[in-house]
């Protein structure tokens, strides 16, 4: 990881996302979007890491990312997802959900669609509405699901003016993040350590399943689903712990891994290489977890920042008789046999790393220190 490029951008970055590649494409990622927060004026920006040939001569060195275009965003960008190649969906602290459209011809962004009061608080006994921050958004063309501090879940469809489905009071506490489990099921995590599975086929506002951490009610901040094994889910909590869940069985996590020293803001399985996982945290660290088990003597290879991960596993003994090859490396929790190699990716720690995204060999992350880090050689 020698080649990690940093660029200071004069705004605190809350989200970074790669633009998805067209299906069947052999290119590597070269465009990503960022959202800022806590500025007087916040922006959604598109960046390119492509080579600009001529730029190399006058100071811009290879690998440095260049701003393509940006647009004002009302409120903090709480979450940001690519809907498709051209469209970006953002969640705002004003409770607004916006779809931005990128015009590649003249490199501009414009508002394509907006649901202004997607999330709101209804005052006690009065019809007065005050907006509630929208905290998470997830897209699966044509559907968009949003969650918020108001504990509400909205299902939108692109090109529909109104929400297709709204679950009021879905959660008594703040919903922090949402992801698709398998259509039409979604998974949410909340501020009292619960993981809830919702099925849009069912009416009513009850989740179809609740999983939770035991006792401590430690808030969960992020969730990601294994790209191939849809029952394997990773979450990150306020105490910096990484939890791996098997949603098919039990209501408790399969393993709890001691990780960061403060809130884990995001966790991502590598989309095409899911034995690799990436996490970032308020403590200013960005970690690469490698669970591919083919390297012997891993414990000696632990890098700086990566402590030997202690398994507090609720070991599932009946896993042993399942055929070995189908078990995800994340579910097998024999600490003696499988060690996870952890590498710290950022050189020095300072302020929170709020967001990260991986695509192919490329990784991008954004921090409160107003820097965007990009590397194009993740597995070198």
């Amino acid at each position, binding site marked *: 990881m020698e080649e990690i490029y940093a660029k*200071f951008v004069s*705004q605190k970055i809350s989200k970074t996302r790669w633009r998805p590649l067209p299906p069947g494409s052999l290119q590597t990622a070269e465009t990503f979007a960022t959202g800022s927060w806590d500025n007087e004026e916040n922006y959604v920006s598109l960046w390119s890491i492509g080579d600009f040939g001529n730029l190399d001569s006058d100071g811009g060195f290879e690998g440095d990312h260049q701003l393509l275009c940006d647009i004002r965003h009302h409120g903090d960008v709480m979450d940001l997802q690519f809907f498709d190649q051209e469209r970006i969906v953002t969640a705002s602290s004003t409770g607004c959900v916006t779809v931005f459209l990128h015009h590649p011809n003249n490199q501009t962004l414009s508002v394509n669609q907006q649901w202004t009061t997607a999330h709101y608080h209804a005052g006690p006994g009065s019809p007065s509405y005050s907006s509630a921050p929208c*905290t998470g958004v997830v897209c699966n063309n044509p559907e968009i699901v949003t969650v918020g*501090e108001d504990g509400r879940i909205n299902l939108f469809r692109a090109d529909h003016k109104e929400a297709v489905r709204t679950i009021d009071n879905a959660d008594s*506490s703040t919903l922090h993040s949402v992801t698709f489990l398998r259509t039409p099921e979604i998974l949410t995590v*909340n501020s009292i350590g619960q993981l809830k599975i919702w099925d849009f086929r069912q009416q009513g506002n009850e989740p179809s399943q609740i999983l939770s951490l035991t006792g401590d009610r430690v808030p969960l901040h992020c969730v990601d689903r294994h790209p191939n094994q849809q029952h394997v889910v990773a979450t990150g909590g306020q105490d910096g712990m990484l939890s791996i869940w098997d949603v098919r069985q039990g209501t408790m996590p399969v393993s709890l891994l001691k990780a960061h020293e*403060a809130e884990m803001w995001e966790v991502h399985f590598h989309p095409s290489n899911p034995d690799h996982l990436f996490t970032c945290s308020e403590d200013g660290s960005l970690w690469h977890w490698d669970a591919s088990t083919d390297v012997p003597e891993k414990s000696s290879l632990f890098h700086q920042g990566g402590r030997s991960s202690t398994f507090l596993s609720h070991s599932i003994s009946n896993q042993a008789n399942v055929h070995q090859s189908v078990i995800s490396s994340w579910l097998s929790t024999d600490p003696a046999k499988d060690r996870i190699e952890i590498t710290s990716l950022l050189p*020095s720690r300072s302020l*929170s790393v709020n967001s990260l995204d991986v695509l192919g060999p490329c990784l991008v992350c954004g921090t409160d*220190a107003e820097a965007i880090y990009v590397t194009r050689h993740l597995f070198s």
Partner: protein
Amino acid sequence: MEELDGEPAVTVIPGVNSKKKQMCFDWGPGEMLVCETSFSKKEKSEMVPSCPFIYIIRKDVDVYSQILRKLFNESHGIFLGLQRIDEELTGKSRKSQLVRVSKNYRSVIRACMEEMHQVAIAAKDPASGRQFSSQVSILSAMELIWNLCEILFIEVAPAGHLLLHLLDWVRLHVCEVDSLSADVLGSENPSNHGSFWNLVTILVLQGRLDEARQMLSKEADASPASAGICRIMGDLMRTMPILSPGNTQTLTELELKWQHWHEECERYLQDSTFATNPHLESLLKIMLGDEAALLEQKELLSNWYHFLVTRLLYSNPTVKPIDLHYYAQSSLDLFLGGESSPEPLDNILLAAFEFDIHQVIKECSIALSNWWFVAHLTDLLDHCKLLQSHNLYFGSNMREFLLLEYASGLFAHPSLWQLGVDYFDYCPKLGRVSLELHIERIPLNTEQKALKVLRICEQRQMTEQVRSICKILAMKAVRNNRLGSALSWSIRAKDAAFATLVSDRFLRDYCERGCFSDLDLIDNLGPAMMLSDRLTFLGKYREFHHMYGEKRFADAASLLLSLMTSRIAPRSFWMTLLTDALPLLEQKQVIFSAEQTYELMQCLEDLTSRRPVRGESDIQQLQDEDIETTKVEMLRLALARNLARAIIREGSLEGS
């Protein structure tokens, strides 16, 4: 009080008529509110239209510059790295670390300067272009001062090496020569270029003799007539003894060699070898350190410190640090020649040459429009253990004072407050108090931001602030009718009173609606339930509902009874609990034992006997009381029947 160092600058607020009206103001952190009062200045009040606005005056405007934000953020990382440098490190390794840190700071300033320069060039309207250009010159001056301080205070180069550093310093900051060189070399016939001799002179002035030699060889090629003297000049340049970093030569050896070389130059001058070529003759005079010849090149030297360094190079290359101030002062006087007076930058540099650190910092504080520079420089010099003795007559030492000022400025900015936290951390005396005062004033518009602020407080064991932030969030949640969230926040703050308040709201809602909201939270309270009695009751009461739902009637019954007898349940809720007991009393099998039934009866009597006797009452109240009476009657009946069944059952069980 010390006397003022200079007249304070006057800030004119457009729209406010301070001549006619009295003004009022209020201090804020880093900002000031100013408005007109309705009082006029003189007693004879003439009607003057007053200004309807309140103005916010910011003193640290540089904080709001988009480009300087990069400087603040990037230097924040360097600052943290510096604080973590091991105190144990001593001698060489420590010094090299500190020099590295200093160079990092300078490279950040340079990066900013370059970007600002680009923006200034690209600026569309001339006004903003000028503004950016002036920022560029400020940044450039900052880097110039910093670099000199690095050489003199951090590097502490000894005689000989000192001059090499100073030469580098001048070369770095007088850099027009590079573009000139490219221009001249790019032309078809360099030696005929109008600026050819200017270029050669500048190269000699900067001590870049190798390059000057190459230039001369071009001249020699072009005009065979002067080839001979060019070669002689080239030889002189080549043989000038210099101290090279890797060389083990002693200073005395060098001085001796230099003396020889100097005498050789002198001889050429007396022989009038170069008399045919005035350019070469003036070069020779420069190389002899001739002050008059040097001052003739004022235009090319562009400033007095360049003059100083060139003068030292050709007259006293092994100058000792302690002698610098003498040469500096005389160079400044000679260069300005009484025509103009020194500017702030000159004074700062002069103070540095005099090794007067405090004067440098003081002058910089007055001259520069931000605290960034002095705060970071002072901190670095403090790490070099150069500022120990200096204590201010207020608060803490100078390093801390400047860091506090800088950090407060960051906190006044809507988004840079996170950087300020770390600066406060490294202010041992007043940092903590300042942080406590500032952190509570950060507006919390989302929970995520609140979590970040909370994390800062929790890491520093600022329990008071943690409690107050949680309370704010809990209050907000209550106002938004988000009871679950409110309860979560009061649990996190361990705020028993507020937890009781929220629990009461839950119970009230239950009484009104007959069902609980936010079950996902209440059912998962765990140990947090013990925070307040009311919360315990809420949790236990839900447990009762669970047991009842699972038809574990005996457990449910004893739990229900214990809630009342242990006095955990608020009295106002007893009637509801007793009503909940009704279906249990009416079950086929006996659930409450005789003894439990007695206790239930006791509770009921307690409740009814203490009922206040009301006087006049309207119809609604009468109706309510009617329902109440019926309830009590039904309960009494059920209790009596249950008691009878229980006695029979217990009696027969004992008998058998």
